[in-house]
């Protein structure tokens, strides 16, 4: 090479080197910043900690995890191939299989996976202090939740958008598939019962909140009729009109609360509210979907996007101080919100914000049928879950930014802290979290409620936290009550959307199962079958809801862990399927990617299931509680008028123990089935048979982004 050529090449060489060095430096800085912020929140023992550290720690960790770990998964483990046509290209029908722009699909996917779980779970887990929950939200998402969502999405893309149940049947075994389907139905029933309980606890004895939520139903009907008959399919204008009306009824709720006669109409106890919600869900499931269910879902999606964005902006703007200690005394298992030690119950309680089995249903449902390129699965599968985890971190900040005494007052049942405000304030102050009954009375008045005591479920305490953050941004103390009811409406709307959509999907599952026994029952349009199957599914989750409402320990104590266990068991199922597929693909070397989170989930769910069934502490063990109540009856300590209630309570506790045992054993059977498969593959006894769709090269140009020609 001549000297002149070398001189010409040198600048290019150095420019690329410097650029590369610059990129490395940026990522090293992000990593160091994240590590520093994590260190700050983990080791800070000062007066109070600014919430901005949580945001920095979380965002930096997410960026590094996305840049490094997800890139490794995409390139080495899954070897995403953009020359391969995705299901949306091969089967494009303009209906189910629709090639969709990466950012739009991210929005769809996120709107589908983001539910009330990451808001409620971290709020409840805040009783252990802010540290364990925050660490698990970040680490759990990066190494387990995002991995599950991403890999299941990938597997489903390679199988024309097949569901997790179908994949389990084909790749693991027929029995495995059946178990997975049954597990999905069982888990859905528990999930719906528990989230309905959160709504009941948020609305009971609150005319303002009940009025607001009740009004969302006629508003949804109005939007439904508009979108069907007036301007078919014009979702944006219909929804914006509905959102405007909802914001108005949030404001108008205060007039209802101030009017004695109207306030009486909308002041409902737990049991009537529970039945009202069951009737609503039955109607939403049985009525035409365009009338009630779909328009409510649109409204919820818009308000969800707006409220999450507002919460993030509020935290950045106000930068509240976190008043909860990093660890509380309740890590020993004596927590008032729910009983159980930090291991495994912190992980079980956080659930969806770190890893959610339910996401595998979305990742193997609509999203794979709309994805444009395989490489988009990284951004959509891994990225959307990171954002969900961030919602969880924000919920944790909102819960921990309020005075700890207030947090415990809202979330503890009277049987633990005491029935009167003074007794409860004394108990909570005795734990080292100073509180007076006047503080609670003043706060309840400021947010426009009659009382804030005993509102277990996470929604009201999160609403107080959010309202304090929002009111510090706009409006001050004067608008605290409006913000509080906006937050309650947002959470309740959110949850009712899960309830009605879940009930309808559950109805289809019941019809499908029933159709195997008696053919006509399986016809989804046959009215008697529609009504009966809707009643069956509502009856099933409604029983859990009713049981939670009448439970003297608050219901959340028994049912949220049951929900967490079932959700995490489903995640274990999804990871079993993912591991099996990876083994069949010959990725034995990297199998720890799914095997380790799966093993961790099996450990925490099995430990939690075991403790929830047989632990000797009546607040933890279902059977111990049943036995303690039975002993009280035997000793004649239960008055005659409470006898029937107590007997029902005993039955419910035994039922919960049975349900936990059945769920855990179903997953054990599935794991055994998978182990047999894995052994056969690893010992080369059976040639691994993958059920992937055959490779078809893409016809799209390299830069195609889902934009129809002539649009741009």
């Amino acid at each position: 090479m001549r000297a002149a050529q070398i001189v010409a090449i040198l600048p290019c060489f150095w420019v690329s080197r410097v650029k590369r060095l610059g990129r490395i430096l940026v990522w090293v800085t992000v990593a160091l910043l994240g590590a520093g912020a994590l260190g700050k929140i983990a080791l800070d023992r000062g007066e109070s900690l600014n919430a901005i550290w949580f945001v920095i720690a979380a965002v930096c960790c997410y960026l590094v995890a996305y840049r490094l770990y997800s890139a490794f998964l995409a390139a080495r483990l899954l070897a995403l191939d953009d020359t391969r046509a995705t299901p949306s290209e091969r089967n494009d029908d303009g209906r189910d299989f629709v090639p969709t722009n990466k950012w739009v699909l991210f929005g769809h996917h996120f709107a589908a996976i983001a539910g009330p779980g990451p808001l409620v779970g971290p709020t409840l887990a805040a009783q252990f202090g802010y540290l364990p929950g925050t660490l698990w939200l970040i680490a759990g998402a990066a190494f387990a939740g995002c991995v599950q969502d991403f890999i299941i999405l990938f597997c489903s893309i390679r199988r024309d958008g097949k569901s997790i149940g179908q994949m389990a049947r084909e790749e693991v075994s027929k029995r495995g598939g059946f178990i997975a389907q049954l597990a999905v139905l069982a888990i859905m029933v528990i999930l719906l019962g528990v989230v309905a309980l959160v709504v009941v606890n948020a609305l009971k004895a609150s005319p303002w909140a009940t009025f607001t939520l009740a009004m969302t139903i006629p508003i949804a009907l109005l939007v439904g009729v508009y979108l069907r008959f007036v301007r078919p399919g014009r979702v944006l204008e219909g929804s914006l009109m509905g959102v405007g009306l909802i914001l108005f009824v949030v404001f108008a709720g205060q007039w209802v609360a101030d009017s004695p006669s109207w306030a009486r109409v909308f002041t409902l106890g737990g049991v009537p509210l529970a039945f009202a919600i069951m009737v609503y869900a039955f109607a939403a499931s049985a009525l035409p979907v365009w009338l009630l269910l779909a328009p409510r879902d649109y409204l919820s999606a818009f308000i969800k996007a707006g409220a999450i964005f507002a919460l993030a902006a509020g935290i950045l703007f106000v930068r509240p101080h976190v008043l909860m200690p990093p660890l509380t005394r309740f890590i020993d298992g004596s927590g008032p919100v729910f009983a159980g030690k930090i291991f495994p119950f912190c992980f079980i309680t956080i659930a969806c914000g770190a890893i959610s089995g339910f996401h595998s249903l979305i990742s193997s449902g609509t999203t794979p049928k709309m994805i444009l390129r395989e490489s988009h699965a990284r951004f959509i599968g891994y990225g959307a879950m990171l954002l969900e985890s961030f919602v969880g971190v924000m919920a944790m900040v909102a819960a921990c930014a309020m005075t700890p005494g207030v947090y415990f007052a809202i979330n503890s049942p009277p049987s633990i802290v005491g029935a009167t405000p003074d007794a409860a304030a004394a108990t909570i102050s005795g734990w080292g979290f100073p509180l007076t009954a006047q503080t609670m009375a003043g706060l309840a008045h400021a947010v426009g409620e009659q009382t804030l005591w005993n509102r277990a479920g996470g929604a009201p305490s999160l609403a107080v936290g959010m309202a304090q953050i929002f009111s510090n941004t706009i409006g001050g103390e004067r608008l605290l009550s409006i913000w509080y009811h906006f937050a309650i409406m947002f959470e309740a709307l959110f949850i009712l959307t899960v309830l009605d959509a879940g009930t309808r999907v559950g109805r289809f599952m019941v019809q499908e199962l029933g159709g195997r026994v008696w053919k006509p029952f399986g016809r989804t349009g046959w009215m008697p079958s529609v009504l009966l199957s809707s009643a069956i599914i509502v009856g099933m989750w409604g029983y859990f809801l009713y049981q939670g409402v009448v439970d003297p320990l608050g219901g959340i104590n028994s049912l949220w862990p049951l929900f967490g266990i079932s959700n995490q068991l489903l995640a274990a199922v999804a990871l079993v399927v993912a591991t099996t597929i990876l083994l069949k693909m010959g990725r034995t070397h990297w199998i720890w990617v799914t095997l380790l989170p799966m093993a961790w989930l099996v450990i925490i769910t099995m430990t939690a299931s075991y403790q929830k069934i047989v632990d000797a502490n009546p607040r933890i063990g279902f059977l111990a509680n049943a036995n303690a109540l039975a002993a009280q009856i035997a000793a004649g300590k239960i008055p005659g008028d409470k006898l029937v209630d107590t007997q029902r309570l005993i039955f419910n506790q035994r039922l919960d123990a049975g349900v936990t045992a059945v769920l855990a054993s179903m997953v054990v059977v599935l794991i055994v089935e998978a182990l047999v498969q894995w052994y056969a593959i690893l010992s080369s006894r059976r040639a691994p048979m993958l059920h992937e769709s055959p490779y078809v090269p893409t016809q799209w140009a390299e830069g195609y982004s889902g934009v129809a020609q002539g649009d741009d």
Partner: protein
Amino acid sequence: MHDAAKNIRRLARRFWRGVREWCGDAAYERYLRCSAAQGEGCRRLTAEEFYVQQLNRRYSRPNRCC
């Protein structure tokens, strides 16, 4: 300056189109384009029919999560 204004307009147009795609406003237009491209023999659905069919399909499988 002129270029910057053009870029902003293009970005705004893209954003607007993204929002319409996300919320489902553009679904019928997409269906029409798709069925025109495929030259389907069967009758083309009206906006109302398509909207109702689309909803029935979407809400018969898990599409909202916890």
